[in-house]
């Protein structure tokens, strides 16, 4: 078996529909097979993203979520079932993905992502998907992506609205802190529970996250930083925004010498139950 072929003969017919695509082909499918993606959050965004990643033939998928399935999740978290209410979301999702694609390697992590475990949990994967539901974890994931030098496909959804952005693309694009240098106060950062969410809106954004991850892995991404804004009730519903480059002064991704300030412990410590990872000590 070489890098230039698929592991199983029937994979050629299984993935034939995408392998005949211009610019994708066998190399694209082999890239997916050899790639690994970690999805943080197996909720409204994570479910659709995971399902299309698994279907596409990606080799290894990590899932990080410490919550258990509740009945009120099923309005949008479409990989869970009524029977699996009470099960860890990461395990419920693993079960669903396994039924869809038994050759997929799945790592189900039922722990919370914290500043102490983030580097080791995330390091083994090629691409990171931020499918979380709170600001502190979003900053933690962005800092982790920068420290590990990996692209971060970030989705968010609230009410009828959604946002999609790839951070730290090619280790050249802006990170989350470049765009939003200062975290909002906790009062200003609502979660789904408080503000409501139309289920299919998370579906649109989560599925688009899968598309972005697949484009990155297959070498089809144009590498230009942009933010996609979705508003289900607006006309037009989508708007694409041209984003700034990296900020030279960014405390996370800025270069030594121009970098200003430091990542504040308090950004996520209060929420994530740990201190900032000691990247130097971890050798990253």
């Amino acid at each position: 078996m070489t890098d230039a072929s698929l592991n199983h003969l029937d994979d050629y017919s299984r993935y034939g529909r995408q392998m005949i695509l211009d610019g994708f082909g066998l190399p694209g499918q082999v890239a997916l097979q050899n790639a690994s993606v970690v999805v943080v959050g197996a909720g409204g965004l994570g479910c659709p993203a995971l399902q299309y990643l698994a279907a596409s033939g990606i080799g290894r998928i990590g899932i990080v979520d410490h919550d258990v399935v509740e009945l009120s999740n099923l309005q949008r978290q479409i990989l869970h079932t009524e029977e699996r209410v009470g099960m860890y979301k990461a395990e419920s999702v693993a079960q669903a993905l396994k039924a869809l694609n038994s050759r997929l390697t799945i790592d189900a992590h039922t722990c919370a992502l914290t500043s102490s475990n983030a580097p080791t949990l995330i390091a083994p994967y090629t691409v990171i998907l931020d499918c979380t539901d709170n600001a502190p974890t979003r900053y933690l994931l962005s800092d982790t992506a920068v420290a590990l030098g990996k692209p971060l496909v970030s989705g968010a959804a609230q009410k009828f609205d959604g946002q999609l952005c790839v951070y730290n693309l090619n280790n050249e694009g802006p990170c989350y802190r470049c765009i939003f240098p200062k975290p909002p106060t906790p009062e200003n950062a609502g979660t789904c529970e408080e503000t409501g969410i139309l289920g299919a809106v998370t579906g649109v954004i989560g599925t688009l996250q899968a598309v972005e991850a697949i484009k990155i892995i297959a070498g089809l991404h144009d590498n230009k930083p942009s933010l996609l804004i979705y508003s289900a009730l607006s006309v037009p519903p989508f708007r694409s925004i041209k984003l700034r480059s990296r900020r030279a002064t960014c405390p996370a991704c800025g270069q030594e010498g121009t970098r200003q300030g430091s990542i504040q412990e308090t950004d996520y410590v209060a929420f994530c139950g740990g201190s900032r990872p000691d990247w130097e000590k971890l050798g990253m």
Partner: protein
Amino acid sequence: MSEDQILLKVEFGGGLELLFSNEKKHALTLPARVPADNSTSPAPSEKETKPLDIAYLIHWLRDHRLKERAELFMENDTVRPGILVLINDTDWELEGEGGYEIKDRDEIVFISTLHGG
């Protein structure tokens, strides 16, 4: 449109519209020259002026359109952390941020970053 007035579209998203009468889209007409100190009450004629810019617009929106809780829109003389300003679908940082001089028919969008999932 007279030469000393500028017509612009302002849009709010990501929940910010809740602070502005729950209206996403606003069509505004503002003077082409405004007080340099961003004060938005009728200006005495001797005041120093500048071309209409984003910094002034932010103050004007707070003083004349905001319906509640100004601290959710502004902080330290600019938009609060977590709000992104877009000028004709481009990140305002690429356009000079608060100092960007607004042109006729510009479209300025204020969106709040979302955290839900």
